[in-house]
């Protein structure tokens, strides 16, 4: 994320404008991570808000501002897991913004693969998803992923391997159900 350490220091000392700057600098980045884990925009938004409230409250206790990024990831992961626990069944299709459009032409990953990955990923536990996102989206080394998640490197490695195997199986699945979400017969409004 490369957050400006001077801004972190000023926010840590209670300067509200600096904290607003942190929200602007990091908000969308954290949102993309949260969305990667939760696969639900509303839940991701709530997780990011929860994260910033925690950052604001706990920032004075951050002894090394240089570690802000990893520290904020830890808070974000906690918030994502809390949102996932809170909302296991709550209207996951609800959306307030334009839905992300599959990159049919320009996308590198084929549309069919995207569907398979999306479904396979959603079947994973939130902990497994988190490992995948932190390592393969954020490019954090597994040791740092373990530190962010508060688990041992062995557990982290095991989760990573399990999750990738599950996603590989999803990609290799030949037969896709025709109507996964009961919307196959919908007509345009």
């Amino acid at each position, binding site marked *: 994320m490369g957050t400006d350490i001077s801004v972190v220091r000023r926010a840590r000392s209670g300067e509200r404008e600096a904290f607003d700057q942190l929200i602007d600098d990091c908000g969308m980045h954290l*949102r993309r991570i949260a969305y990667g884990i939760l696969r639900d925009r509303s839940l991701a938004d709530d997780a990011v808000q929860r994260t910033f409230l925690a950052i604001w409250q706990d920032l004075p206790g951050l002894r090394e501002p240089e570690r802000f990024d990893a520290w904020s990831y830890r808070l974000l992961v906690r918030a994502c897991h809390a949102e996932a626990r809170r909302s296991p069944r709550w209207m996951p299709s609800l959306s307030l913004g334009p839905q992300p459009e599959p990159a049919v032409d320009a996308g590198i990953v084929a549309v069919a693969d995207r569907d398979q990955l999306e479904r396979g990923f959603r079947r994973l536990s939130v902990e497994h998803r988190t490992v995948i996102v932190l390592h393969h989206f954020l490019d954090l080394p597994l040791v740092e992923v373990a530190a962010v998640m508060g688990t041992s490197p062995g557990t982290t490695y095991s989760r990573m391997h399990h999750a990738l195997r599950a996603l590989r199986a999803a990609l290799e699945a030949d037969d896709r159900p025709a109507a996964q979400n009961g919307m196959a017969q919908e007509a345009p409004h």
Partner: protein
Amino acid sequence: MHDETPIDPRTIRAVRRWLQETADELPDDPILLASIRRSVPDRRPSPWTRILQPGSRRPLIAGAIGALAIILVGLALTSPLRDQRSVVGGPEPTTTPLPLPRGTMAPGAYVIDTPLVARGPLAPDDDQEVIVDVGEGWRSQQGGWILEKPAGYPPDGATFEWWDIGRVYVDPCHMSDGWVDLPSGSPLESLATILSTWGATDADRPATAPVVTDPEFGTFDGRPGFELTVTPPDGLTIGSSCETNRYVLWRDPVDGERWIQGADQAMRIRVIEVDTDLLFLVAGSFTETPAEVRAEQQAMLDSVRIRPRPATPSPSASSGS
């Protein structure tokens, strides 16, 4: 023991690209950032709050501070100025209607809208706005679109919602049975008829249609409307009986869906005609939802008012920096 079977590098490449592509497709959301800025208090909670937390290594200090706090609270309660002060540590109650924050809300008046609604009083740029009074302990969820206390799930949750209905499913348990579209400007009576005759079409199936009370027509905030209550039928096991394991009541024009969160969930629906549009308000509750929370929901429904939207300051006037 770990399964050390190496993962095909192509899988890893596909996963990494998929993560990147779907993240890139997520648009920036300045409204979210503004909402977060609004929700963060200007001042941090006092460091004493941490000392008083369980597990603190300073119990003596905590005890002294606790005693001091009791004295201060006592003084505050007996002070003639107490009505002019905010609650210590709590959010300020709002007096003028505010935009909905995300997360925990202060009690007060809020403007409710639905950002992608194209027309009607829930549209953010409509010349009218909808205001609701919210009590203590409610939380704005789903991106500031549904209120809940303490959560919208069984056994004792409660919700307050507002919808722009685009489609009503004929049988919420079997969406493939079809739906009734509600174009913008649908008459009040049409929606009342659709909702009150909600029912399954297949006689060979067990009854899955919702139980709906007769619509009670009345006047709300000086406008015509009706109320009714919808509940799933007794004994329905949604998870095993319904398509996609869900009981989906309706859908809005931007693809938001509302499905029942538990077989005992009751949805009190109030529809108000606002000019040529229908404002659709819902109070959801479960059998164990406390009576006082139900009373709050009713108060929230009754507090809803539609007012001319104040003129928005021009961007040049609002950007003071």
